[in-house]
């Protein structure tokens, strides 16, 4: 397998973009990535998106994006893995470049959640389970997280889980593309209403629209480009759809496996990871992400957050631009925001959010409640 480099990134602001369409957002992010890379052509396009059929009555996004970019000719298709669709598109794009079949691919993820009502978005997320089981009884994404939260609390105590959104928001202050670029206090988080007890509204990422894109190139093309490059590795693993069908619901085995695989592929140890883009769709998922990937002992991740270890200046900076909670989480785009931000970090373009001399960053994306995991490493070159 050949090396794969990120040659350019582009993304939109995350917000409720009432006056924008999904297509428009995908094109904006793609054009920014092309400009950033100094390229105007690619060999193929991979589109990450979860809910276009449900919320926009749109399938066939690959061909649609190719047409919108004036590239109707090249291979283009949409990849789906629930909320981790962007990472799935990245994995597919990575493979085409690593195999040598393509010199350059565009990977773009986008989601337009505000076209639907919040209860429709929730309904859409619930499709990550089985229609005759979770969806049938209304055991939605938040309720499954809440049940995990309860069990975690019983076993380890959970006073510190609310520190995750506090940490994420602290990093989003002043970030131009973040949906919620402001600090959030612990008191505010703990006094927000329950969305599904004991999970509170401010422990859960909001509903926003956005698109993010990366251009991946192989070694041959990388050598000819002037734009700053980083090197990419991606690994993936799955687990049973329902966390309670697994041996240990409090261990996201898919995350553990994907992270081990990507570290092996990147020939790095955990100590060499300078920052992590955690998948903090909920505070409990952020905790389980950190613990399942071996960066915190079981039950101890909340303490790390509360003590400031995960702050930009801490021993293991996380969510360097605000993570899912503060930067935003437009489903199919999210993983690509993580990759773009990691690229900015290792190419020293992160401005106020720069993690000093970060050699490599890890990004974790999750589909469902741990049923699919993607672990990506973005390394300085």
């Amino acid at each position, binding site marked *: 397998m050949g090396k794969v480099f990120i040659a350019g990134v582009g993304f939109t602001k995350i917000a409720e973009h009432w006056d924008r369409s999904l297509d428009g957002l995908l094109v904006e992010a793609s054009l920014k990535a092309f400009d950033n890379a100094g390229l105007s052509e690619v060999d193929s396009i991979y589109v990450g998106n979860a809910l276009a059929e449900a919320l926009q009555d749109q399938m066939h996004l690959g061909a649609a994006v190719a047409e919108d970019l004036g590239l109707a000719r090249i291979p283009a298709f949409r990849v789906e893995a629930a909320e981790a669709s962007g990472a799935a598109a990245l994995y597919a794009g990575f493979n085409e470049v690593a195999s040598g079949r393509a010199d350059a691919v565009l990977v773009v993820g986008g989601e337009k959640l505000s076209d639907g009502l919040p209860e429709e978005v929730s309904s859409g997320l*619930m499709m990550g389970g089985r229609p005759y089981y979770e969806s049938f*009884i209304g055991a939605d994404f938040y309720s499954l997280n809440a049940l995990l939260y309860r069990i975690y609390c019983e076993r380890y105590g959970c006073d510190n889980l609310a520190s995750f959104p506090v940490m994420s928001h602290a990093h989003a202050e002043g970030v131009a593309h973040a949906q919620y670029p402001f600090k959030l206090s612990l008191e505010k988080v703990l006094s927000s209403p329950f969305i599904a007890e004991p999970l509170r509204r401010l422990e859960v990422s909001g509903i926003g629209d956005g698109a993010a894109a990366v251009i991946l190139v192989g070694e041959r093309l990388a050598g000819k480009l002037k734009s700053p490059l980083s090197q990419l590795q991606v690994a993936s693993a799955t687990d049973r759809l329902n966390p309670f*069908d697994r041996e240990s619901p409090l261990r996201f085995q898919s995350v553990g496996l994907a992270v081990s695989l990507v570290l092996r592929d990147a020939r790095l140890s955990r100590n060499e990871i300078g920052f992590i883009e955690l998948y903090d769709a909920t505070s409990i998922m952020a905790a389980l992400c950190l613990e399942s990937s071996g960066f915190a002992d079981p039950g101890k991740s909340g303490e790390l957050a509360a003590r400031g270890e995960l702050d930009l200046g801490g021993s293991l900076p996380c969510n360097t631009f605000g993570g899912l909670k503060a930067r935003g989480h437009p489903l199919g785009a999210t993983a690509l925001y993580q990759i773009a931000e990691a690229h900015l970090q290792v190419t020293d373009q992160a401005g106020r959010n720069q993690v000093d001399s970060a050699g490599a960053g890890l990004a974790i994306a999750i589909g469902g409640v741990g049923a699919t995991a993607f672990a990506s490493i973005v390394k300085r070159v």
Partner: protein
Amino acid sequence: MRVPSYWRNMPFIYRLSGWRCEHCGAFHPVKPLLCRRCRSRRFSAVELPRTGRLRAYTILRSPPKEFKDLAPYAIGLIELDDGTRVLGQLTDFRSEELRNGVRVEAVFRRIRVNGEEGLIEYGYKFRPVAREASPP
């Protein structure tokens, strides 16, 4: 659920009926070709026990669109008497009865009504056991 899908799944959603892998014991709501856990191919028909213990629960206050009219409602993780873990809505609970460890039993209830004209979807829910009868 669409009508054919609902009809295919009646044994599980009405009676907690399903298939157990003869090799590793994993329960499957629909008869599989392959065990989801160990890939073995032999199964026995089972009806799960109707009683168990509430292992954890949550109360949903902003539910998905299909369940808007039901809000707030409770979802529980139940450990049935044979160890099988199952998710279910909780019904007929007084607030003081809703605690971990409480004994629950499966009952047959309306899960969802598709408007004035559509199908009524029935299925299992769990309620606190107020009364235990002697075993058969």
